[in-house]
């Protein structure tokens, strides 16, 4: 296999060599790496903010700051950067750009230059967001930015918030159009819609969701700045505006956004489960339909974030029901994941450990969404640590574990080397234990009444549950911190000193491992790939091999 990138020695076409090739690249893989770097940097920054917050919350009373605005700055940065800077770019940037085009057998994205434009918009957005740490009037209105607080002077630089969201939103929209065209038009010859890996399906669907809903978010935050700086009155009750309008618009996007995050990371889990068990994904077609079902199912439930916001009662009970309906497609996906293990031949590789951890967290984390969805129950737990724990379990813990599983999984393609297996597993176990210790106790603190976004909890100083939970949670943070550090070390070690990987280290059937060099060069495939009608990315028995169309005379100029 190694010879087939001909002119490159030992199967390593390698990465671009010059700074110009890196910076001015229009290649989807290099752009994918830029996305990855951006998102990991965001994770580090937002994770350090979480570290500071947890240290502050470890005990009652001020620990490292007594200034509410400083804590709120950390929290705003943590929430916004984790979601907009880490999770979405890692999944819809890195996975979508790096893996998807190769998985569908395309030579690049449909619009390579637009792709480069998107990644630099992402970097612009991250740079603006980081500026929030140094400007004097930092924005502290939380990632949700509710008016009228966010349009008041106390919130700081609202324009920065608007700009970050708009710039990242533009980046997402262009990226989404690009990816949708790639998947729709550039699949290799013979690859039908039902022969696409589920990673492709999930990323594709997530991008459709982005296309439909991001604009609404952009509009809602632009109106914030118009209100604050140009004297418009959309959200100002005094001139006939309405503060609740913002919440409706915001959640109309931001609920679907959680599925934008969920779907791709479940796609990664499907990939790894199937490869590790060497088993066809259970009920593949129903999984595809379940994924698609998230588009309508996610679009009509936003009010569940505003159950206690004074909306009419009929709307609450209605959206309570529509929210519950999401358990159907979600349950089917979980069923497919478990079913993939049935009669499998499971190998517990490093990425599989991360993915399994993600699965275990996901089942319990997603189930904690159900009490929130029951409007009457939500009256008691809304905006408490119950909610906080819920979304960290699904999005932060499960989501990060699956994302990191993906990074470990595609690591050989990125670097040509494999990460040390023991270190990979150790960091997975550490992260699993650490984050459970952080978020588990906080669920009970939430039941005991602990509200979100509190820099201190003086009023609960004699509530043993809350004080104890906060204490243990901070201890959990230290475990998490160390395991994240270990993970970073594992990556660096793997990149420099790791064992050389073979062409297809996990034994996958998908095109990115079987039909191109380990580190593919520009254009990805030697000549256009073609798959047979009964080829399937998840079939491990008698799967016909992808073939290559005869090379046109001009190949490899």
């Amino acid at each position, binding site marked *: 296999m190694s010879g087939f990138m001909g002119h490159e020695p030992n199967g390593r076409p390698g990465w671009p060599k010059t700074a110009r090739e890196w910076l001015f690249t229009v290649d989807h893989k290099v752009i994918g790496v830029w996305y990855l770097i951006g998102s990991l940097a965001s994770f580090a920054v937002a994770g350090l903010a979480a570290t500071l917050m947890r240290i502050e919350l470890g005990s009652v009373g001020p620990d490292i700051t007594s*200034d*509410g605005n400083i804590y709120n700055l950390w929290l705003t940065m943590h929430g916004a950067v984790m979601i907009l800077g880490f999770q979405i770019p890692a999944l819809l940037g890195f996975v979508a750009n790096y893996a998807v085009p190769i998985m569908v057998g395309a030579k690049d994205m449909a619009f390579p230059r637009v792709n480069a434009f998107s990644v630099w918009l992402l970097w612009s957005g991250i740079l603006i967001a980081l500026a929030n740490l140094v400007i004097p009037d930092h924005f*502290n209105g*939380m990632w*949700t930015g*509710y*008016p009228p*607080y966010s349009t*008041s002077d*106390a919130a700081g630089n609202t324009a920065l918030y608007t700009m970050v969201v708009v710039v990242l939103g533009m980046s997402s929209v262009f990226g989404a159009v690009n990816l949708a065209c790639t998947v729709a038009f550039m699949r290799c010859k013979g690859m039908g819609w039902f022969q696409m890996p589920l990673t492709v399906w999930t990323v594709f669907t997530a991008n459709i969701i982005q296309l439909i809903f991001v604009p609404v978010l952009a509009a809602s935050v632009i109106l914030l700045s118009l209100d604050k700086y140009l004297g418009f009155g959309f959200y100002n*009750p005094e001139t006939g505006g309405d*503060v*609740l309008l913002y919440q409706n618009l915001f959640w109309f996007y931001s609920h679907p956004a959680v599925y934008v995050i969920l779907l791709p990371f479940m796609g990664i889990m499907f990939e790894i489960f199937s490869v590790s*068990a*060497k*088993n*066809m994904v259970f*009920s593949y077609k*129903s999984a595809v*339909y379940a994924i698609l079902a998230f588009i309508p199912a996610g679009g009509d439930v936003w009010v569940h974030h505003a159950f*206690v916001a*004074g909306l009419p009662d009929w709307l609450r*009970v209605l959206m*309570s*029901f529509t929210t*519950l*309906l999401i*358990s*159907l497609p979600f*349950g*089917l996906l*979980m069923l497919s994941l*478990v079913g*993939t*293990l*049935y*009669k*499998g*031949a*499971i190998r*517990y590789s490093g990425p599989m450990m991360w993915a399994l951890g993600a*699965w*275990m967290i996901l089942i319990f984390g997603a*189930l904690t969404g*159900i*009490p929130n969805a*029951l409007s*009457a*129950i939500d*009256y*008691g737990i*809304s*905006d408490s640590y119950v909610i906080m724990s819920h979304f960290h379990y699904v999005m932060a813990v499960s989501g990060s574990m699956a994302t990191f599983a993906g990074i470990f999984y595609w690591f050989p393609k990125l670097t040509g080397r494999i990460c040390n297996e023991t270190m990979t597993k150790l960091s997975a176990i550490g992260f699993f234990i650490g984050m459970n210790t952080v978020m588990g106790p906080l669920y009970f603190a939430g039941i005991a*009444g602990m*509200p979100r976004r*509190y*820099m*201190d909890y*003086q009023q*609960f100083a004699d509530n043993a549950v809350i004080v104890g939970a906060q204490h243990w949670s901070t201890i959990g943070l230290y475990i998490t911190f160390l395991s994240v550090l270990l993970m970073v070390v594992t990556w660096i070690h793997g990149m420099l000193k790791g064992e050389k990987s073979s062409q297809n280290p996990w034994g996958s059937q998908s095109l990115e491992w079987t039909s191109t060099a380990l580190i593919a060069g520009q254009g990805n495939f030697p000549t256009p790939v073609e798959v047979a009608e009964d080829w399937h990315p998840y079939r491990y028995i008698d799967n016909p091999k992808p073939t290559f169309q005869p090379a046109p005379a001009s190949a490899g100029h």
Partner: protein
Amino acid sequence: MKIKSLSYKVLGTLLALPLIPTLVYAFEMDTAVRKNYNGLTPQAHWDEVWHEVMLDLIVIGVIYFAVALFFMIRYKRTGHDQVGKSPKLTGQAMIGWVVIPCMLFLGDDLFLYVKAFDLHNQMRNVPAHAQTIKVTASMWNWNYDYGNGVDTDMELRVPVGKPVIFRMTSDDVVHSHYVDGYHVTEDVMPGRVTWEWIMPVKLGESVITCREYCGANHSKMYGKLIVMKQADYDAWMTEALADAKAESAHRVASAAIGKVTASKINEGQEG
């Protein structure tokens, strides 16, 4: 042909599955019971539903988890080039694996929904004889207006055994009024009046906190609810009324000065 049409009938019947718990529940509850919920307070009702929901979810979670764990152990790879051997689903099996789980999920959803709907009805229907308290939130204060000229900051006293409804609005940003132990939260915002009600049945204090982010001192915006015996409450109220009267008399006397200072203060706040 025969087998096929039979299986469609089976699948069709399964479609009715979700109705079962709903119907069970509907029959179980007669309207008279529903009306006063057997004397159940909203908070006790909430606890009950909460525990049922938790039990339900734990059962689902444990089933999924146990099956997965079993597969994980049972199907560990042993040979080097061993591959998975999951059976290929027939078309009908595929439909079955969608319809049956979906109906089960839907059934459970409806079951939970009906319970919560009932709870919702109780929590969102105020008893006729409830006492009204006007709540005004501001950064960072809770003001309780008893409607008779008495008002307090950060502290609310109510007599035991009498439902209380809060009619709430905000002077500045969005806040959220949460009374610990009563499982009620409702946002408070400018330009609208929102409400929630509680049924205090136990003497003692509970914490009132703000649950919507409202700036630097969001976490310090807490007060307490004090539930008192009717007699104690009356005594307190008489005293408070007298105080309020004295104060308003004082205010009338110094009306001219008062106006000036008040407008000054307002300007200062806005600037």
